[in-house]
């Protein structure tokens, strides 16, 4: 029982590590079209990449500080919302990240076929 719990913990930690990098790529890709936090979260969840708000908002702020996103406060449905979209630099970085991801994917597929 304890071994089962431990192995599921290990799996969960590894899964989180695997997802962490992918989530950044997914957020950048989603923000090719402007969205605010809540709709972005829903969109990611609908596409199978659920992300909790405690992770998403700090990530958005970090990406904005790094110059990959730009944001703007705007009123919509009588409420002020912060809209994010990819910056010029963000687009270039996203392109490179996608190329890197494809390269990793291809290498992994090759290794799995060899095994």
């Amino acid at each position, binding site marked *: 029982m304890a071994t089962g719990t431990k192995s599921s913990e290990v799996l969960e930690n590894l899964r989180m590590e695997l997802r962490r990098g992918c989530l950044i790529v997914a957020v950048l890709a989603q923000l090719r079209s402007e969205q*605010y936090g*809540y709709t972005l979260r829903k969109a990611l969840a609908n596409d199978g990449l659920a992300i909790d*708000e405690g992770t998403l*908002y*700090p990530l958005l*702020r970090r990406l904005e500080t790094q110059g990959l996103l730009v944001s703007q406060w705007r009123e919509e449905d009588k*409420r*002020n919302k*912060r809209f994010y979209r990819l910056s010029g630099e963000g687009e270039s970085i996203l392109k490179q990240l996608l190329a890197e991801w494809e390269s990793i994917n291809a290498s992994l597929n090759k290794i799995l076929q060899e095994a």
Partner: protein
Amino acid sequence: MSKTSSRDSSSSRNSTELLDRYLQAVRFWLPKAQQQDIIAELSEDLHSQIEEKETALGRSLNEAEIEAILKQRGRPVLVANRYLPQRSLIGPVLFPIYCFVMKVVALCYLVPWVLVWIGMMSLSSSYRAQHASSGWFAAIVSGWSALWLTAFLALGTVTIVFSVLEYLETQSGFLENWNPRKLPPVRDPHQIPRSGSVVELVANVVFEIWWIGNMSTRVLLNRPEIRIVLSPVWRYFFWSFLLLALVNAALAGVNFARPYWTVLRASFRLVTDCTAAALFCWMVKAALIAEITGANISAARTVEITNVINLAMARAFPILLVAGVVILLVDAYRIFRVKNAAPAQLKGQVPAAVL
């Protein structure tokens, strides 16, 4: 109807208040410059979630449902912490070194402190009378309070030093500059450094010459102004320490020629250390000073001085005993280690070698 409406309005007011309280608690932990921005966005997100749920249910959420949403978001301090840059008093680069230093401090400072305290309490009647006069429980409490203070100061100082190092490391990255060539050579725990054997050999020979030249008689000092005479038991100590020094010099010579520990030599070292510890313990308890005479000192005064010196030496007994036990444990561990070493570890040794 009006009752239901009044209850709904009160529940909605409570829900809003709960939300505001939550946002206020998160705001408290945020840096001032970002408070407004982060709280506005968090508030908007929470309102969007509540609104979506209300649309799905076709009614306003009650206080319990709002509470569930806030609980799912997490404790305010944790929510705020996610917006802050990752900080640590001692970071992952220095942390293993910090742990190592803490262990060294505990082993070399606190453990001997405890052992000496136990030794003094068990073996020194004057120390016990001084500290356990109001009972053993009070003595233990007072001992442990002193230990906690010592531990707090020692470990606290290490922590402060490392937090300063961490700060300097983040500013200058001095730990990035390292050279593999400067790493220490591979250590073989069974090897006896030849330099150590040479030092031991020379020290023992120098000691023997000095010992024979100066300590062979009972008269320790013989000047016109003062004369110190040791008790007759001194001759046992003289010959015993001389013999011990000769044996140690011989062992150092063998260790130089064959610089790897064997069970026999490690056992020999245990025996010599055991003998030295016993001799020292006996010596401090033996009232070694027999007589002191001085030109301008009265007989009563010299007796008093003699007694004070002998008593002071006797008081060192618990400390010597504890030190002796520690040395013997180290020697015993060496025998255990050599006995259980894998053959590959004992490289350079002739398997059939006796010494």
